[in-house]
């Protein structure tokens, strides 16, 4: 399309076109007279053709750029500030502001996502911890009650009957179980704490890295700026 236009423009001016170079023929020299080697001439014409095509296209795009700038000057004059529009600095700045704004909004979203995630994780950990603590509490309550009942039984039977031979072992087993269940709560608490702390450390690391990369990006920007000056 662009090319067709430029060629039409060329035709109008009665100028040499690349097509003419491709189709041009010369009469052969008479036999016995010196002439150019036909293939060499054709090769050279191909070269000239390529160069001509390039020049035509370059010229066309420059013409379009001139038209564009002319229009912008006209529009700028209407706004009362032809210079700013002509040089496009304001446009470039607004463009940069938009890019930075988009980047900032993306960063904000990352941080908000991370915060929502960490919030969910800690909330879940809190609930799980409450649940485990409650279970352990119930367990130890039941066990304690059981132990009390056995103690009462033992006291009664000690008063009435000689103790059966297995009571000691049973009591030891019950005490061992009691001790086990008491530590049960502690151990789970420790596990849960370690788990939560691990998660928090992960989030900290993540945020730290992001802050660092952000600062690097900002520094990169600053460097570019100083080079630009």
């Amino acid at each position, binding site marked *: 399309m662009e090319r067709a236009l430029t060629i039409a423009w060329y035709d109008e001016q009665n100028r040499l076109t690349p097509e003419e170079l491709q189709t041009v023929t010369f009469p052969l020299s008479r036999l016995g007279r010196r002439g150019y080697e036909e293939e060499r001439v054709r090769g050279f014409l191909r070269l000239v053709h390529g160069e001509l095509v390039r020049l035509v296209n370059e010229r066309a795009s420059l013409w379009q750029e001139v038209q564009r700038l002319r229009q912008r000057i006209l529009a700028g004059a209407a706004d009362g500030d032809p210079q700013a529009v002509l040089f496009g600095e304001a446009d470039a*700045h*607004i463009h*940069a*502001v*938009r890019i*930075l*704004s988009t980047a*900032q*909004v993306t*960063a*904000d979203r*990352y*941080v*908000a996502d991370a*915060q*929502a995630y*960490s*919030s*969910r994780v*800690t*909330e879940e950990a*809190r609930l799980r*911890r409450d649940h485990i603590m409650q279970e352990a509490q119930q367990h130890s309550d039941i066990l304690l009650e059981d132990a009390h009942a056995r103690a009462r039984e033992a006291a009664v039977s000690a008063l009435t009957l000689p103790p059966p031979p297995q009571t000691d072992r049973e009591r030891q087993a019950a005490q061992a179980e009691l001790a086990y269940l008491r530590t049960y709560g502690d151990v789970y608490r420790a596990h849960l*704490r370690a788990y939560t*702390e691990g998660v*928090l*450390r992960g*989030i*900290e690391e993540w*945020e*730290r890295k*992001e*802050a660092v990369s*952000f*600062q690097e990006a*900002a520094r990169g*920007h*600053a460097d570019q*700026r100083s080079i630009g000056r």
Partner: protein
Amino acid sequence: MSRRATCSSICRAIAGAIQRQRRRKAGLLDVVRLRESFARVAMHGDEVPLFFYSDLFIKHPEVRELFPVSMAAQRGHLVDALVKIVSQADKVDDLTAFLQGLGRDHRKFGAVAEHYEAVGASLLATLVHFSGPAWTPELAADWQAAYELIGSVMTAAAAADEQLRPPWWRGTVVAHEQRAFDVSVLLVRPEPRMSYLPGQSVAIESPSRPRLWRYYSMANAPRPDGLLEFHIRLIDGGAVSMALTSSTIADTELRLGPPVGALTLSEPLSGRDLLLVAGSTGLAPLKAILDQVAAVQQPPKVHLFFGARNADGLYDLDSLDKMAAQHPWLTVTPAVSANSTFAGETGSLPDVVTRHGDWSGHDAYLAGPTEMVQETVARLASAGMAPDQIHIEDFGWSEP
């Protein structure tokens, strides 16, 4: 002598700024026109502060590091401040006080006089951008004048503050103790020494969460070794509280802003007995007040209610019980809201406090979750307590 001289020169600067403002108000500055212009720009919502900060950071990349990674909250602060300034543009005294506070507050963020010019230029560029064809030379002059005034009041207040104290204190964490699943107690050494009133708070910044500041109250009156105690509750998703309750916090160097807040005992004492109501880590400022009362010659009677969701949350009860055993003027009543098998008081703090009788002859100091504080204040007021007997702080403990 030299301090007085500097002070008076700064006072003159502020007075001059106010005078200039009055002159402008009488002549050049058109408040109605400013408000209309601002309303037009503000229609564009979050786009406006977004444009402002991007413009500022492109023109002055070095300013970027004064702000946190996420700018979402920051944009809200900027718009809030602008709305306040524009809506109070004709109330010079209120506005001046607000701007002076803002100027002092910005010292800890590292704001210096040169930044004000950069901010002014970006503010103007933002207004131009969003005003479109509505922008006129008269508006430009109005805004320019308004911003010059804002900047001069803020910088004058900051300069006056500079004579009195540093922009922030270095605070080394010398001890960290996890008291409950989600509550830690920190002992911090400020450098230089910090003087403050019991009940006041400081903004804290942790190095792992740069440029994020949260208010926490000192939990002790100033003591000979200068250490500050802070009670930190881990809030789900709370960036700063998470950093401060981390097990790696020991030896960390925090930054502390200047002490602020008015949850302090009246001087001299009113002579009335004290009612202290603390929900969770809202205990901190009230414990500092207890410290202060303990040092008084003839202390008033003090009744402290300390509430939490469950017995685990009563993270400082041991030390409070010790204080109560030591001081006959002190009564401590712990209360738990979510566990009916607790041996002491159960139910919400407002309920428990109200159940304990008539407090109308007391001075009340309350701190803790906003809802609890508001509900208790409402109950005390309806039971006949005068507003000037009720003391609360409206920030700090509910912030993540």
